């Protein structure tokens, strides 16, 4: 009886199952939407918006010569699509301040008597100072600048008997060894806190709803507000633990020092934890199942943190609409704060703006989520 007939039966069995699965997917509109649109969104994002390539990076020039040569080079640099000259500075202190304010990624410094040196000794120097808290970008920028300078050098040499050399001296601020860890430790901190706090909190609250225990504890003197706070406290504690372990590992295993104030860093981290918790509560208000909570957390927190906080892809290289979106992602601000405090060693005066933004976000989120917290099942 085996052979053709049996095989036929088994194929039929198989295909009917396949057909059923297709029907299930087709009828679950929400998942279908995501399945079809996700790749499109990804391609658009990665293709057009998210790029490691640096363009329009903000730079400053400190020209101590202001002669023909330096002006020529400055113009070349400024005209390049990679750079966006935002400031001409007039002292090293100013350079320092501008970097601290986070306004520039690189500074070009021409020494006194640049052209004179070139003409009389065929040899001059240019200093490039880059913000190496993001070592990849720093590298790229200095490479571009060096290339432009070499071009100029080349053009000089075309018309000369003796070769001219313009040497570029690189100085990488904050991260002289260009360690990748300097960039990703702050990023990981933002990610981990968002994940643990927001996702786990929302899942935990929704789990009560799913298991049916929420129904029972609602019918008790326990104020719903207290339920939320009780749910978030363990994750607050876990987050503190996580931050501690990440910092310990960074300092002792990865050699990423905490240059600035540890207390400030911890304080900001607590703030961000609370921000993340509020997001978690907000998500739990809408989600009916743990799966939905998890999925929403991933889509609205994890991915945006990954993509828009600035730690994988520099924000200023994205199209304007995405830059605007990135402002709404709390992790972006936290990432800036951590980098400033931990890597750059800056104080509160440098990060008060970002802190204020986080505080405002937290208060807004908390108010909305508490207001919307359902004191009933429906």
């Amino acid at each position, binding site marked *: 009886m085996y052979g053709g007939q049996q095989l036929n039966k088994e194929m039929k*069995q198989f295909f009917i*199952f396949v057909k059923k699965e297709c029907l299930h997917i087709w009828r679950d509109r929400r998942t279908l939407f995501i399945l079809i649109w996700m790749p499109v969104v990804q391609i658009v994002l990665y293709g057009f918006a998210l790029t490691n390539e640096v363009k329009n990076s903000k730079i400053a020039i400190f020209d101590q010569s202001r002669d023909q040569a330096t002006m020529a080079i400055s113009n070349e640099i400024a005209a390049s699509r990679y750079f966006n000259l935002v400031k001409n500075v007039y002292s090293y202190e100013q350079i320092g301040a501008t970097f601290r304010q986070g306004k520039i990624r690189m500074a070009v410094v021409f020494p006194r008597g640049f052209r004179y040196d070139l003409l009389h000794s065929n040899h001059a120097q240019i200093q490039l100072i880059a913000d190496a808290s993001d070592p990849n970008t720093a590298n790229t920028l200095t490479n571009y600048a060096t290339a432009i300078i070499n071009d100029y050098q080349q053009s000089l040499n075309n018309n000369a008997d003796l070769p001219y050399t313009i040497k570029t001296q690189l100085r990488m601020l904050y991260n002289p060894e260009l360690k990748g860890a300097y960039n990703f430790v702050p990023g990981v901190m933002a990610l981990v806190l968002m994940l643990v706090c927001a996702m786990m909190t929302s899942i935990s609250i929704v789990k009560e709803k799913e298991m049916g225990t929420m129904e029972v504890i609602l019918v008790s003197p326990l104020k719903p507000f207290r339920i939320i706070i009780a749910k978030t406290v363990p994750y607050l504690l876990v987050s503190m633990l996580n931050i501690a372990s990440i910092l310990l590992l960074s300092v002792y295993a990865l050699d990423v020092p905490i240059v600035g104030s540890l207390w400030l860093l911890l304080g900001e981290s607590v703030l961000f934890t609370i921000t993340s918790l509020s997001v978690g509560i907000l998500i739990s208000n809408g989600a009916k199942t743990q799966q939905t909570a998890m999925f929403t957390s991933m889509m609205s927190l994890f991915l945006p943190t990954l993509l828009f906080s600035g730690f994988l892809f520099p924000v200023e290289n994205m199209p304007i609409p995405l830059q605007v979106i990135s402002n709404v992602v709390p992790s972006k601000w936290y990432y800036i704060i951590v980098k400033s405090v931990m890597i750059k060693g800056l104080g509160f005066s440098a990060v008060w703006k970002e802190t204020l933004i986080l505080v405002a976000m937290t208060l807004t989120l908390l108010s909305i989520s508490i207001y919307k917290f359902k004191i009933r099942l429906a």
Partner: protein
Amino acid sequence: MAKDKVITANNLTKKFGAFTAVDAISFDVEKGEIFGFLGANGAGKTTAMRMLCGLSRPSSGQATVAGFDVYKQTELIKKNIGYMSQKFSLYEDLTIRENIRFYGGIYGLSDNRIKEKTEELVRQLHLEGQEKSLVRSLPIGWKQKLAFSIAIVHEPAIVFLDEPTGGVDPITRREFWGLIYEASARGITIFVTTHYMDEAEYCNRVSIMVDGRIDALDSPANLMKNNAADSMDEVFLHLARKAVRSAD
């Protein structure tokens, strides 16, 4: 003759570590019988049923279902039995017709046969015009009846029903048993567990499991006589109350 026995079980046992869930049960079920398999929660009913359906490997003992061995021929068992439980029955997001098509296909029915069966089922359950409705939209009583009919779409030798009438209204419950009677009259053996003791009285024979063993196996009439009881409810209370293992 073994051929007329749809289920044979001999000292069938299932242990989970030190815990003996099913303790050497022995019984037979004859073709066309309506066999009630009763017991308190935790008595071992579900475990025993799983072994008979080929879903769980016994620790020791022998058993055959529809003539096939529960150790070596589980795939053949599954092809020749039907199964329906209160918790699972049909795919809610598929239509009635699609559910029939799917299960028919799984059991290897030809396209023509599936078509025939669909018409037959729809007529029998008075679901004309609703073939394309999603199962989700049916009231629960209809779902159960439909699930049963689909469980026997391939005319198996025996169908296992795990508390099929839980929570259903009394009229639908009885209509359900009407379907069971008809199936039984067609020669399909019915193996059913239930918490409704009056349903136990519809069975030809009933077994009652207590603490993993079969404490009683007889027709309802005999059980009532032997236990000086007026109803299966009383019989059950009398026997199940002796249970030691009520907390597991």
